[in-house]
């Protein structure tokens, strides 16, 4: 050390400070740059994960408060939207409201009772509750009924905040069934034009069932008086003692649960009743007796419990065998200890709160899952699920109201929803479906990602079927056969093709290509086939020509001889296809009865599969155009980078250009070629605009080339603007993004491993 310091370093050996600093700086800079890329990618993944994670969390329920309720013989419990002013109806028809806001506080209204006017005139013999419309239904001892609307209204008092006020709006008493005979059970359904009320009565030990359809006068000032339009005696349809009655809101049916465990489904077409179906929901159980029968939101699913505790859901759907809409068993939930004591359906989704007193269980109809279940510290007799799906209210047998907060933002989410088969309402079988929005509030969301994954694979498959052979063969041809002078023009042209915005391609595909192709499928197919067969044919014939004639074209310029023939063959194929259509794809037009030749009609008829104008074939074609330049350029580079020595070595041994290409050049470039294919695949998997524009975006689960599809990426593009921030759909879209991410990640990882292997195997010397 000492010695070295003493000796002065000649100036010409001194490294400049700046050089050293710059070198050091660049080293660090590159390190930081590389790391930040890794960090950025990880952060994106973490972000997506954070968006997705809440989907897989269960419900949390937290006790809030208890408050006393004046004792009474309550039969119905309901609540307002904010769960501030729940009500209890006793057997006599009195409605008790309890203010739950700030109990004991200065503005708490305590509790108060409202009695509908009808209670004075007649004595109430039955009370029913239509939860979805917050309507009470009273039956009287003399065979009449009235509908009482519990109308909550938010008011904003001067002191600030919000106060819920309530009003009862009742219809006049209307006759039903036998006069003077008490109504035992009753049900009401009707939100639109048609309204229907059904009631059971007991006359001298015999049960009777009556129904009335209601008419409402419409005046300029709005809805007018209700009146009975027509009465029906449905007693003939009874098979036993009717215990449960239900009418869906479309008022097109009456469902009767009998004590023998059977359910009778009467269909009402507006004029007449017909018996559609009798089914026994708990047929396989020893004790088949039905304890409760209630609708889920939407009134197309019935939640039934048996006395033995079994809990099942029946839904109405078009049965392919019966060819009409009948009820079928769709969901099974774990048993309760006995028949349900309380039931409350969510007004937001397909959840319901059910329990047998001790146990309270929040269940989700669509997914057959229990969101939350607990042994209550008390014996509950009534329960209500807050209409905003944010509160649980229980009334126990000691007249104490228990108030819970419910936090369950994504009740439908779960593995089964996203990746499993589910029999949705209205479907005859369990299916993978995606349909995130519907026309009605009570629409059951279908959130299976499977059709989207299949759509992604389908789009990729057709794009690759089209792009791979063309891109790879073109790359081989360009790098190994084409004259370098021509090659100079081919590559930049391809690169321009790669830079075409995919929205332009999608636009062309949708508006120009799709109609052309769908009008002339046989022509397109036969022209393609012609070109493929023709290429081999002409290639073979060319090889058979004597050297003297082949000499006329310089090697690398053979395409000059080929192209005119190929054009000719394509042209001939096009017309041959049209001709073939005339003879092969003949079908009778169902509308006109004429026999016409049209592939578009023939294909669905012959195969039972669909035919759409914007289909996978078109997408494959156009997405192929987006993918071809990528695969082509990278492959061509890889092939051209194969050391010239290999090529010369092979040619010098008497191998033909084709043999050289296939036996030496392509294997040596296989790593690069493989990368090219994988990058092309990645592009096809993630390609969005073309798919959005050139397909109908129908989520399908089949690989029919003549129907469209919806890919994961297109799904995100189409639905994200509609998805409420942080809602289930929003997060589900992120889940789709994550699936997409994982798919490409898997593809890339496999590709990288394969590439390394290939590179090792075909590593050139040095």
């Amino acid at each position: 050390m000492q010695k070295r310091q003493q000796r002065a370093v000649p100036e010409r050996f001194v490294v400049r400070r700046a050089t050293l600093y710059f070198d050091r700086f660049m080293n660090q800079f590159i390190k930081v740059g590389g790391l930040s890329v890794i960090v950025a990618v990880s952060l994106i993944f973490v972000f997506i994960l954070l968006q997705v994670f809440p989907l897989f969390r269960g419900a949390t329920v937290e006790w809030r408060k208890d408050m006393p309720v004046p004792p009474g013989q309550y039969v119905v419990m309901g609540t307002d939207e904010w769960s501030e002013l729940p009500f209890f109806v006793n057997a006599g028809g009195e409605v008790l409201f309890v203010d739950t806001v700030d109990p004991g506080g200065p503005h708490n209204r305590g509790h108060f009772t409202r009695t509908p006017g009808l209670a004075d005139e007649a004595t109430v013999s039955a009370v029913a509750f239509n939860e979805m419309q917050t309507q009470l239904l009273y039956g009287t001892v003399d065979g009449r009924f009235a509908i009482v609307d519990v109308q909550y209204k938010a008011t904003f008092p001067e002191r600030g905040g919000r106060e819920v006020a309530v009003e009862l709006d009742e219809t006049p008493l209307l006759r039903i069934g036998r006069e003077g005979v008490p109504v035992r059970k009753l049900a009401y359904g009707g939100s639109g034009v048609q309204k229907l009320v059904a009631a059971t009565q007991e006359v001298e030990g015999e049960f009777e069932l009556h129904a009335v359809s209601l008419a409402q006068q419409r005046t300029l000032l709005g809805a007018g008086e209700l009146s009975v339009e027509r009465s029906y005696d449905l007693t003939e349809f009874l098979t036993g003692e009717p215990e449960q009655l239900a009418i869906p809101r479309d008022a097109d049916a009456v469902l009767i649960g009998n004590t023998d465990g059977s359910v009778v489904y009467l269909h009402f077409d507006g004029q007449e009743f017909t018996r559609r179906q009798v089914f026994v929901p708990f047929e396989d159980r020893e004790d088949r007796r039905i304890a409760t029968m209630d609708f889920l939101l939407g009134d197309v699913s019935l939640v039934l419990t048996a006395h033995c505790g079994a809990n099942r859901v029946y839904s109405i759907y078009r049965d392919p065998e019966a060819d009409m809409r009948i009820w079928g068993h769709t969901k099974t939930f774990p048993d309760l200890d006995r028949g349900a004591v309380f039931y409350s359906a969510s007004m937001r989704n397909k959840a319901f709160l059910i329990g047998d007193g001790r146990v309270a269980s929040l269940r989700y109809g669509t997914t057959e899952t229990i969101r939350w279940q607990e042994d209550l510290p008390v014996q509950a007799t009534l329960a209500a699920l807050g209409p905003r799906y944010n509160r649980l209210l229980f009334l126990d047998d000691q007249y104490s109201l228990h108030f819970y907060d419910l936090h369950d933002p994504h009740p439908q989410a779960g593995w089964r929803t996203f990746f499993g088969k589910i029999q949705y309402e209205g479907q005859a079988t369990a299916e993978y479906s995606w349909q995130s929005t519907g026309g009605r509030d009570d629409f059951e969301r279908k959130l299976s990602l499977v059709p989207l994954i299949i759509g992604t694979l389908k789009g990729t498959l057709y794009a690759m079927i089209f792009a791979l052979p063309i891109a790879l063969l073109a790359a081989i041809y360009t790098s190994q056969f084409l004259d370098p002078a021509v090659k100079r023009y081919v590559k930049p042209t391809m690169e321009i093709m790669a830079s075409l915005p995919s929205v332009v391609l999608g636009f062309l595909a949708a508006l120009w290509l799709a109609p052309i192709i769908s009008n002339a499928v046989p022509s397109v197919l036969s022209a393609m086939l012609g070109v493929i067969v023709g290429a081999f044919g002409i290639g073979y014939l060319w090889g058979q020509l004597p050297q003297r004639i082949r000499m006329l074209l310089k090697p690398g310029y053979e395409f000059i001889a080929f192209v005119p023939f190929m054009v000719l063959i394509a042209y001939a194929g096009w017309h041959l296809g049209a001709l073939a259509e005339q003879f092969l794809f003949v079908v009778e037009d169902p509308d006109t009865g004429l026999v016409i030749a049209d592939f578009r009609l023939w294909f669905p008829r012959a195969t039972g599969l669909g035919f759409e104008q914007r289909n996978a074939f078109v997408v494959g074609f156009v997405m192929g155009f987006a993918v071809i330049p990528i695969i082509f350029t990278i492959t061509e580079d890889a092939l051209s980078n194969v050391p010239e020595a290999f090529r010369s070595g092979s040619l010098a041994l008497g191998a033909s250009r084709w043999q050289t290409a296939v036996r030496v050049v392509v294997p040596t470039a296989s790593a690069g070629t493989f990368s090219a294919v994988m990058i092309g695949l990645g592009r096809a998997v993630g390609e969005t605009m073309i798919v959005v524009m050139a397909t109908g975006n129908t989520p399908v689960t089949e690989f029919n080339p003549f129907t469209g599809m919806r890919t994961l990426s297109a799904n995100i593009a189409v639905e994200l603007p509609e998805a409420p921030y942080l809602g289930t759909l929003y997060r589900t879209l992120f889940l789709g993004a994550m699936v997409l991410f994982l798919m490409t990640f898997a593809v890339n990882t496999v590709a990288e491993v394969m590439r390394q292997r290939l590179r090792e195997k075909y590593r050139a010397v040095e």
Partner: protein
Amino acid sequence: MNEASPDSAPAVDVAQAVRQRRVEVAQRKPEADADVNLQHIQVCNYSFFYGTTQVLFDVNMDIPERRVTALIGPSGCGKTTLLRNINRMNDLIDGIRHQGDILIGGQSVYDRYLEVISLRKRIGMVFQKSNPFPKTIYENIVYSLRVAGRNKKAELDETVERSLRGAALWDEVKDRLKESAFSLSGGQMQRLCIARAIANRPEILLMDEPCSALDPVATGKIEDLIDELKKEYTIIIVTHNMQQAARVSDRTAFFYLGKLIEYDDTQTIFMNPAEEQTEAYVSGRFG
């Protein structure tokens, strides 16, 4: 099929020989060409251009069969170009042009009846830098058979052994034929390339500085090999190594700036050259 009596006397009258061979060729069918054993190479008034640059000027050479002919001369004088034109390896280069002719057994390599592929099958080539394919040793050697559609195992096995023995490599690699060719050393690789070049039993062997990247031991082995091979093949070897040219060749051609300066028996070129430039070059005074 390649059996013909070794013709020891170099042709004297080039023009007459050319004429005579041409007559013979004209009487044959084109398909039969590949089967005729004519290893005699004649370069007649041959000029060659890369684009507009002329790199060979009116070269005339008569290369005797079953002899080793060495091409010497400073870098860039066109030795490789001449060599690569004998089996038309230069065809793929853009913008090339030639004048004059190269005849093999009297037939022009540019003959329009002649398949380039069959021409190349007749001519083995060993490159300056060894270039085994990324395949096994075995597959490297049988490559020329496989591309000819000859896949019978017995024939392939026989070829591998014969070629490797011919290239003096058999003993070294006979137990590792299924290993990658890249596992060999530099000298072994070059001998593998020689074995590969003679696998299809060509008539002519072109070697472009085959030893330039090799150590003296490997070089010695390859020189011995060349001595062995000339019994069967017409060999043309490009070399920068004067001793090597003197040791292995029978005839030597000296090129300078694309011109053939002198072409004679090796002994004459090295002991008693006719030209000043030749003398200067072989004695190491320039180049």
